[in-house]
């Protein structure tokens, strides 16, 4: 009987070890996937930031304002400057 008990305990322990390792492996894959998603989102975010910077270029703004809305620079003497 003690042998069977011992075998039972060993079997349980073995099962636990297998289960833990499987869980670790599964969690590792899940974490890896999430990390990958984070990286993809970070890259997309960076790409968008870069686009914002490029579009905020005075040359781009000036060109777009002229082409889309027909804006032209105002002569400085026509600007009314209010006293602070």
């Amino acid at each position: 009987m003690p042998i069977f008990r011992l075998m039972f305990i060993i079997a349980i322990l073995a099962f636990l070890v297998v289960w833990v390792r499987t869980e670790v492996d599964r969690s590792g894959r899940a974490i890896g996937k999430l990390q990958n998603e984070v990286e993809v989102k970070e890259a997309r975010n960076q790409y968008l930031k870069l686009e914002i910077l490029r579009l905020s270029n005075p040359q781009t703004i000036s060109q777009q304002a002229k082409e889309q809305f027909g804006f032209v620079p105002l002569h400085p003497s026509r600007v009314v400057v209010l006293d602070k």
Partner: protein
Amino acid sequence: MLKRTLSSPVVFNIKNRMRVLGLLVLVCPLVIFIRLFYMQTFLHEAFTSKAERAIYNYLAEDRLRGKILDVNGRALAESVRTHSCGISKRYVKDKTKTVDFLAQTLGLSKNYILEKWKESGNFFFVAKKIKPDNYIKIAEILRTPLGQGLELTPEYERIHPYEDSALDIIGAANSKNFGLSGIEQMYNKELSQDISRKRAKHIRRGEIIYDRKLKEDVSVGNVYLTIDAVAQYYAEKALRKAVTELGAEHGIALVQEPATGRLIAAASYPVKDGQSLAFQFTYEPGSTFKTIALSAALDAGTAHVTDSIDMEGRKWEVVKGFTIRDNQHDKNFLSIAEMMQLSSNIGAGKIALELGAKDLFYYIKAFGFGTKTDINFNGESKGSITPYNKWTKVDTVTKGYGYGVAVTPIQLINAYSAIANRGILMQPHLVDRIEYANGKIDKRAKPIKIRRVLKEETTATMKKILQSVVENGSGKRARIVGYNVAGKTGTAEKLSKEGGYGKRSHVVSFCGFLPVTDPQFTILVILDNPSKYAFGGTAAAPVFKEIAEPLLTWKGVKPDQLDFE
């Protein structure tokens, strides 16, 4: 004596053979052990440094670099994280599909990838610094069977969101993120991450494990220039147009705040990484230098605004064999203001001669010519001005109208700013501040008075004279409705390779400030060797106007003329 024969049992018996074999077996590990001991003890340092070099070299490529921004925080140079895509051949499941995917995603030919596959060992890079959208596509399939064997190695790429704007000042950094020229080089230490504090292990190709605590420890500084990206755009746009239309070799446009010495635009065209002509170009300024000679004479009291200058029939023989001619007017006498308006070389020469070599030299030096400005730009020239005791009479006269003296654009604009700033010469600044990740701010552009060059009364007179040049003289094309503009044109012949001055080779320029009542901007425009016939008044003055007008609008500067339409 013991006599041994070939048949001696002492040599060949089994026991002795075993002893020899055992000894051999022992000697080999002993040799290895001794070698290991030697390496661990005596070669330890050499191997450690070799290993560290390999690690840090890798990190240098990967490390973050600070930004270079304009005064308002617009990024002019920024490091973005990109990736290199590599292949570990042994892990690739389906070669054809993987190659097809990479060729399509990265826009490469299949043959190119297959060639690399054939030529390299187990690992090779397919593409470096891939675009973020391509990175996204590859990263998404990385954990699928198609992505097996692919590796994305992080690295930083230096990008310039405003393209080539201010690139001559910003300079360049190499692929290992080290500054090579311009601000990138001058402030390399501040812009670079302190890698000595960043521990990492390079465990296999393309993968770095950082020390967790130190991974986010970013010690880089961001360098803020005094340059304003908008002002820089106006200056570059106007300059590019003028250089192209006139077929000039180079063009330079500088904008400075006279009261603080801060440069708000410094454009060179054509643009070369880290080679700003504003600090590195030396030239004989010609008539723009008459302002320096005249203000010196007025300040020293050897000339007065009411004086009248004899034009010697517009043909003045200074010494035998050296004659100056004024062909641009037909007057026998010129007032001081007229002398500047008509840009008379005879008048300026006589004023310089009256002042004397010693005093002229003193004022030229006091204005900062012949000395570096301490703006600390790499390759800045100090110009050239020989000591007055070596000057002949002709030298003194020619210096009065800007020949025989070599200046840099930054020196000239700073001297004009001193006149605009009531006679006080300010230290010019290019870097406003450095902000570190820990919140520390290192302010670099505090207004620093270098010295008083002219009396305030002298500058008031000079402002009126220079204003008259724009209103009635050679600088008419710099006039702006509503604003009083002061300035001086310059058309200087260049020294030819054959010796003497080339009649067809010129540097045309205009330097001035506005509004005269409360100067906000000093602007210098230089066009080097235009192929089309051009003068400072016809070519450079309109560029001055083209830069000044949008600047006034943008900064909301009030007109200082009351009755204008």
